[in-house]
């Protein structure tokens, strides 16, 4: 190896290491800030336990709805060339670029009592603002694009010829999808769903506008921080961080390919 290429490699590694440290540093600091006792203590607080339970429930519901509506869409986007495909693809990615409080305000205007949609749904007994459905709506809004794009890529990675082979072997279009494409894309779709779920868990900006109470975990942490100060917020923050790390590990295990 020449000196030049050695210097080049060291420089690349150093730049990358800086960024990695910047991400890992604060997280480690947070993890070791509180004592294990303080975590246990925090978990005794029924309000925290309720907020975690609420977060898991709402995020799971939002993910389920996103999967139900988003997986067929992802399949269409991956496989069919229909008029307006690019437009639909762009629209579905909009929530990723919109600031979350903006999304919250838009949802509030759309689903609030004074809007036609919100009013009509309210008549049916479905209240969004300051109610649990509001949390789910906000989570769905911000996480659906992640699920759709994950599932779309998963479907795209499956050779479309395989479905044709299945068709010549007697499968209907649905059977071919169910027996070939879905099993092959399944891990990718699941990974996308988990990513969407963790996006829902971490959502704050739009939920805070739509439904402050009952509190999901992120709002609970914010509330503790503004009411009681930094130290009171740490244990709950650590717990949420641990949940996120677990999710990351699960996704890594699910995602095939990159391992060598």
């Amino acid at each position, binding site marked *: 190896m020449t000196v030049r290429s050695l210097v080049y490699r060291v420089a690349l590694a150093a730049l990358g290491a800086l960024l990695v440290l910047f991400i890992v540093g604060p997280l480690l600091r947070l993890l070791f800030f509180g004592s294990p006792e303080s975590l246990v203590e925090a978990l005794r607080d029924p309000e925290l336990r309720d907020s975690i339970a609420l977060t898991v429930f709402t995020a799971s519901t939002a993910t389920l709805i996103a999967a139900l509506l988003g997986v067929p869409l992802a399949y269409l986007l991956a496989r069919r060339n229909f008029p307006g495909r690019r437009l639909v693809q762009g629209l579905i990615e909009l929530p990723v670029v919109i600031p979350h409080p903006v999304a919250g305000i838009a949802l509030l205007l759309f689903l609030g009592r004074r809007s036609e949609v919100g009013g009509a749904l309210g008549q049916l007994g479905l209240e969004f603002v300051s109610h649990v459905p509001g949390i789910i709506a906000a989570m769905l809004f911000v996480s659906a694009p992640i699920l759709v794009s994950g599932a779309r890529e998963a479907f795209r990675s499956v050779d479309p010829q395989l479905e044709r082979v299945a*068709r*010549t*072997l*007697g499968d209907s279009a649905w059977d071919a999808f169910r*027996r*070939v494409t879905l099993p092959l894309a399944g891990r990718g779709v699941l990974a996308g769903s988990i990513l969407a779920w963790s996006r829902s868990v971490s959502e704050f900006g739009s939920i805070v506008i739509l439904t402050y109470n009952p509190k999901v975990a992120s709002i609970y942490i914010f509330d503790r921080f503004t009411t009681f100060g930094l130290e009171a917020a740490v244990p709950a923050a650590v717990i949420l961080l641990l949940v996120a790390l677990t999710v990351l590990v699960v996704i890594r295990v699910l995602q095939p390919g990159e391992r060598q």
Partner: protein
Amino acid sequence: MIRLENLHVRVGNFDLRDITLEVPKGGYALIIGPTGSGKTTLLEAIAGHAQLRAGRVFMHDDEVTHLPPEQRGLGFVYQQYHLFPHLSVRENIGYGLRQPRGNGPRPADRVAELAGMLAIEPLLERRVRGLSGGEQQRVALARALAPKPSILLLDEPFAAVDPATRQVLRRELRELHEREGITTLQVTHDFDEALRLGDLVAVLAEGRIAQSGTPEQVFRYPNSAFVARFVGTGNVIAGTVERIETGDGPGPFRARFTGGSLVLDVVAEREGAIHAVLRPEDIVLSLTHHSGSARNHIEGRVVRLERLGPVTLVHLDVGRPLIASLTTQSVEEMGLKSGIAVIVAFKATAILLV
């Protein structure tokens, strides 16, 4: 039986047009043509994967033009095999078999039968990843044959295997075809394959059938310079024909063919621009002039010898390149080698004008 009537398929900017073809029940037909001539598109259209713009498809006298692929009852082996990567070899072969109601034959028995026929029993429990090209080929074939289709479509089935395996597979496929009595349509770019396998061959060029017939017919009597070149009939020379016999009746007449520096006596049916096709087997070489029945005698020179076992191709220079095919024995007896001057002779009737 497969019958295609005036098929027209468009894929992107490519058109497959006026495709009319009939493969008799139990027949083995080959579609040959260069890359991009529309071979695969044609198979996809027959299988029901490609939308037809016009034309009709019949299978065993039933029109299937508007049936989805799964109701056409055919097997399709793709060039890249496309085995299902999430299933074992056994599951791949059994994919198209449905559990019978009542006392039908069990799917497991059919899988075992095919595995035996194709000598792949030891592979049955393996995943498809890691199978060799030849093994994948056999599995793909077994999978397509399992539901006992009455029609089998094969897309360049031997393209991805080594030549030795190809020979074995070709023989096995022909045997299978005879045993199962399946009407087979295979796509290839290799005319040699057509000669060995097919009862019927159709040459596809730029989305149209340029010629169809028995392989022997197409090889011996190509109807165009394209077909002659593609199937390797032999020497194809562009030129013009003029009448030298002053007869006025219809039918063939004696004529002179001029192609560059080459002037030949031919029997023609029309005048004007034309291609002369001369098969290498019809050329006689000698070291000295002698009066034979052959009308054309040209002086030439041996450029090089290409030995193909019992046959040797002699590359000649007669003012333009020409290839003659001789037995290796006679090449040795004549002592032919590159640089030697020879007399090149052939009959006027050996020249096919297309």
